[in-house]
């Protein structure tokens, strides 16, 4: 099992300034399990990509490799032109520009909502407290829950918590937002409020990479829909083409299963 990332060759670097994320021949293993097999992907500025697929297909692992929460063993990952290696300084630099929203929200339960939002700007971007709080309130208003600022995460509903999580990532002014099944842990009536926040974000031109089962969302805002199965990208198309005219049999099978109800 190869353990090192390959040496970066200059002619493989992304050529345009608009290229936000580039994956070249990325492989990943969990011990012996080959979870990502030869992934090649380009995401440009302002694009919204939806990744779907059966569970265990490696979709979450893929986006977690982009902000180095998982480490790839082979291939190259470029985020905004910087290569992701084990180098901690690069990793931290990239993480400041890439926001992530998790399925389990992962809010900090011992801090108020306002403190949850201002923590990173104050400690990572060294922003003064007042400025950070103004910024936090601005984004809380954007996700339509400014009145919850002084409460604790445990006092909010799931939908509210996830919107706080989105606002928290936005406070760091990221260029790219990653969503790892953001609505999968929510009750159905709360899914809409979170999707609305994400759609608004998309309309403002944010580059988004979203792992989700919400096909309605994909049809509304996605530039491309990617289907993954068993660690490989099977199909990658624009939404209309993808849903109406899937080429691969596995894609057809998956779509028939999830669109059945």
């Amino acid at each position, binding site marked *: 099992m190869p353990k090192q990332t390959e040496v970066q060759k200059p002619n493989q670097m992304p050529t345009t300034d608009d290229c936000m994320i580039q994956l070249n021949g990325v492989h990943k293993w969990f011990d012996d399990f080959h979870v990502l097999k030869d992934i090649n992907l380009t995401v440009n500025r302002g694009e919204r990509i939806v990744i779907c697929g059966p569970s265990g297909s490696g979709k979450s692992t893929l986006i977690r490799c982009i*902000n180095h*929460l998982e480490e790839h063993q082979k291939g190259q990952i470029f985020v905004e032109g910087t290569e992701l290696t084990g180098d901690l300084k690069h990793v*931290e630099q990239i*993480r*400041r520009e*890439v*926001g*992530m929203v*998790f399925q*389990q929200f*992962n*809010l*900090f*339960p*011992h801090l*108020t909502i306002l403190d949850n939002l201002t*923590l*990173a700007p104050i*400690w*990572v971007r060294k922003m003064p407290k007042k400025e950070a709080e103004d910024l936090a309130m601005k984004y809380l208003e954007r996700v339509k829950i400014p009145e919850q600022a002084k*409460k*604790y*995460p*445990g*006092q909010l509903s799931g939908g509210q918590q996830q919107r706080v*999580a989105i606002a*928290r*990532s936005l406070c*760091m002014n990221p260029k790219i937002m990653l969503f790892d099944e953001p609505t999968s842990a929510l009750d159905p009536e709360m899914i809409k409020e979170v999707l609305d926040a994400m759609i608004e974000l998309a309309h403002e031109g944010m580059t988004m990479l979203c792992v989700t089962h919400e096909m309605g969302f994909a049809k509304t805002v996605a530039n491309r829909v990617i289907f993954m199965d068993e660690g490989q990208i099977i199909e990658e198309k624009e939404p209309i083409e993808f849903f109406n005219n899937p080429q691969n049999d596995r894609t057809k099978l998956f779509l028939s299963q999830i669109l059945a109800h």
Partner: protein
Amino acid sequence: MELVGRTTGCFRWMQTNLFSTPLNTMLTLISIWIIYISVPPVFQWAFLNADWVGNSREDCTKEGACWVYIGFWFKQIMYGRYPETEVWRINISYLLLVGSLVPLLIPRFKYKGFVTIFLLFVYPVISYFLFIGDSFGLLLVETPLWGGLFLTLVISLVGIVASLPIGILLALGRRSKMPIVRALSIGFIEIWRGVPLITVLFMSSVMFPLFLPEGMNFDKLIRALVGVMFFSSAYMAEVVRGGLQAIPKGQIEAAEALGMNYWNTMFLIVMPQALKMVIPGIVNSFIALFKDTTLVLTIGLFDLLGTIQIIGTNAEWLGFHIEGYVFTAFIFWIFCFGMSRYSMHLEKKLHTGH
């Protein structure tokens, strides 16, 4: 058994809790009998038939406890062989400590950070000079003269205050991905945990000087303090590690995804949650440490218990061992119960929000 009579009040409580079933009734009666044969005699011995006032052995006339004994030796019990004329220095230090702790307990006090820094860094230095002397015109009082409750407090406070930060660093080190750091942390913890405290004290007192070059000598109390510090840090490390393990990985991932570095993540996100979770374990370690300080008797340091033992051998006051031990137990109980109640208060206070 049918419940009759009024629906509220003491009688009803007794019916519901003490006499509700035949088994409960029997247990209640047995308990009452046990209390009857044990408590009144103890109460009589300790209070009713006791001598409270007096100056010498002749004043111990009643059959009960002779608290005159404690009163007579009170200075030694409190301060050991510290010169009576210099005891005011210790008292000033006590006042300073209590005075600094009071603002920390007031919820709305704004300068808690400054007070904490003062307590952690300035107060120990001030106390050191007050206790030792030999500067600022104060008389030198060497550490062999320190004793009684004063010595117990010195050893336990140093151990308690040092063990938490060192323990936290060791716990983080043990979970680190860097192999050398992890190996050193595990090694430290397992060595200091694997040896009884009495052996640690013995080795610090007897063996350690053998390894020092000729003429170099460390004060015996300092050696004991270092031993106690390392010993309790090893225990604290494992308590803290238990808390660290209980923090969901998602917390660290969220912090990392926001671009926070290791130390920010640990001290702003993980530690506050982990420490809050293991307050019972931490306070437990503190209470155990407070009581373990009595072991310094084995290396010739006379803490509270040691002083009581020594007093018990005084020719004029033979036969008052029980009073001595009861009083010692009482003092220990006050401090330990105080810590326990403060921990309960802290847990209740920190439950705000979730």
